[in-house]
């Protein structure tokens, strides 16, 4: 493993002493640069069943908190616009469109009676359409709803997700296709909306659809022995590589991969960390994020309290950094660097290349339990 890291450092041109590093890399995972004007935004919770969308700056100072009617999950960012979309955690009924600078509510989305939101949303590159994963629970069918942002967020279409229990979705680099993680789990609001009802027969997959007409373009699944690996979260690099994190619905003692990499048109390639890390991942990945270079991706494992980092070119495991109850991950503008958040209220800068973790200095961050996903807004 040390060899893999050394090889990676060499590839990244980070083989020598720190003083010889390019300025941008040498600054990685140090105290935040005061000029870093990025804003990070996430769903969060207080101590009393109170839920928010909150934003903080690069030092961890909270900029606003907007109360939500229920627990949020991920935030969709409308390109070149103030809108962000906060969709309720599954089985969700509401979606709120907020002003990214103030948190003010700009629009409300209501889920149809026979659907439930599943926590993730993504905008088209032109910002016109918002896509949300939903559960058509009476038919155990996943759908992607389409909302027209220029028409008051009117629900204008609905596509099949080509699987059950769709969760995270992303735009592909061409901007014309959506990749959807169909987790495979059927749930029903009559049975709390979260308890899996089909573990023995679940069939997760990754599907790519044409966002203009909903047609299936590519689909891939893991081998049947691994059908209990719920494919839940993903991210897409600029070259179209898809990294995915799994959540295992089988036994604690089963030895299964928890990470996959997919080049559409081929099979999903399962990846495993060294045994001591793989075991600490506790059969559960919480979020997936590529770094700014697209060469590294991070996968958080909140049950094990660590974030794993992987080389997207060689598919090798790079390293891991402990992050108690850490889940939210956002890439900074520096190669190999991420900001992570935790349910305990921590925020860190994490450098996958040098294996460093620096706590964000502003304590206001600690007033919240940071939820699963974190987004970076460039201001």
């Amino acid at each position, binding site marked *: 493993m040390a060899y893999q890291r050394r090889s990676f450092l060499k590839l990244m041109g980070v083989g020598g002493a720190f003083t010889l590093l390019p300025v941008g890399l040498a600054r990685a995972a140090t105290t935040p640069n005061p000029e870093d004007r990025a804003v990070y935004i996430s769903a969060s919770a207080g101590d009393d069943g109170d839920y928010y969308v909150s934003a903080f700056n690069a030092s961890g100072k909270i900029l606003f908190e907007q109360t939500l009617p229920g627990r949020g999950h991920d935030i969709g960012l409308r390109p070149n616009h103030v809108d962000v979309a906060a969709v309720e955690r599954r089985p969700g009924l509401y979606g709120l469109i907020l002003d990214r600078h103030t948190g003010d509510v700009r629009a409300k989305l209501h889920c149809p009676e026979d659907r439930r939101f599943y926590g993730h949303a993504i905008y088209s590159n032109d910002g016109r359409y918002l896509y949300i994963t939903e559960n058509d629970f009476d038919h155990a069918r996943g759908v992607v709803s389409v909302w027209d942002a220029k028409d008051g967020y009117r629900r204008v279409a609905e596509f099949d997700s080509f699987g059950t229990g769709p969760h995270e979705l992303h735009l592909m680099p061409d901007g014309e296709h959506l990749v959807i993680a169909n987790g495979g789990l059927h749930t029903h609001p009559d049975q709390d909306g979260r308890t899996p009802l089909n573990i023995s027969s679940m069939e997760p997959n990754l599907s790519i659809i044409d966002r203009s007409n909903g047609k299936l373009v590519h689909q891939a699944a893991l081998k049947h022995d691994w059908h209990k690996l719920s494919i839940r979260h993903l991210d897409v690099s600029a070259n179209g590589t898809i990294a995915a994190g799994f959540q295992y619905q089988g036994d604690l003692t089963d030895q299964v991969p928890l990470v996959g990499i997919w080049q559409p048109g081929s099979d999903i390639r399962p990846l495993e960390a060294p045994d001591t890390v793989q075991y600490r991942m506790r059969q559960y990945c919480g979020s997936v994020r590529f770094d700014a270079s697209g060469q590294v991706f991070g996968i958080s494992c909140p049950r094990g309290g660590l974030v794993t980092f992987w080389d997207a070119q060689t598919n090798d495991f790079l390293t891991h950094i402990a992050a*108690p*109850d850490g889940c939210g991950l956002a890439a900074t503008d520096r190669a190999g660097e991420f900001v992570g958040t935790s349910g305990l209220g921590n925020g860190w800068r994490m450098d996958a290349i040098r*294996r460093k973790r620096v706590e964000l200095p502003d304590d206001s961050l600690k007033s919240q*339990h940071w939820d699963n996903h974190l987004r970076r807004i460039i201001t």
Partner: protein
Amino acid sequence: MFCKPSWRTLLLSTTTVLAVGVISPDARADIPDENYQPVLAHLLGTVMPPKLDDFHAATENLTSEFKDFCSDPDKSGLEGTQAAFHAAMDIWQEIQPWHMGPLVANGRDQHIEYWPDKHGTAARQFRKLMFDKPAAYTDPEKLSGASAALQGFPALEEVLFADDHGDQMVAADEDGVFLCQYGTAIATNLGTLSGELQAEWPEFATAVENAGPDSMDYPTAKFAATDLYRALHEGLLIISSQKLARPLGDGAEDASAGRAESPISERSLRNIEHNLIGLFAIYDGTWGDVGEEGKGLAALIDNSLLDRSFKLNWQTVGDTVAELPPSVAEVLEQPNGYTVLTDLKGQIDFLTTLVENDVGGNTQLGGGFNALDGD
């Protein structure tokens, strides 16, 4: 033995009576991080090392017994080797649930004991091995690179206890000679693995004990202690969901002792008895004659009533297992055997609930906001 008062009555009554006055964990202030450090030091630095020494000594003794037996095979030598197997397996079953660090590095736990074996890999590979009898499998070094299913306790169980292998070894016929050489290689390999475990543990324990903000593995002592809490919690879950639920199946008609752990050496419940000893050490800080009472996770619980309640409940379950025959097969042969095992599973599940609520809550080591999310 099977007509005792309901375990529910016993467990629930102690819990109900002793829980009066228990302070809600939510009402407590955060436990300072420095309070977790002595627990780590005690369990990882004081309690575990002598047990790893014991395990290594037991596997060395097993190797020695095997060699002696095979040099001049007779019934008494076979029995001595089988006893050495049980002694080594007893201490392994106590260590097994401490699933962390060098125990899981390089797949070591699976090399020591390939289990659960859901697809019957060990038995299938063993049959093929006996057909081919490859010489490489009698060389401990080469064996260490072979399939995990063929190099640890389950393989040794096949050699020592399955079919007429014992008689073949005593007779020293062609199969018996191979079994003797292969069994000695497995025992030697187990000695190597236990020696590696013994050697690597101190560095791991030091890294955990030195938890702090500069550590990329353990940024706080509390975070490090969650691994111990998880070992305790998951150890019970594995007993229930794997070691008992698998042989119990979907109902009495579906029950099968063959799906239990160590079915050939007929010690599946003896394994659980020893699992509970190793797991209790995490809570209490004592493990046989090693350690000190109250210096495990219990040191973090500022409530003597709750501590007494937990220990009494654990004792009740431990006594139940100790009074049962050593194998699931023997219990299932009894008219009410399925009910007895179902009740035992219920007791383990109840202990799991106590660990989640009382230990997890009061030590503040239970799951976090995101860890419990499931999304």
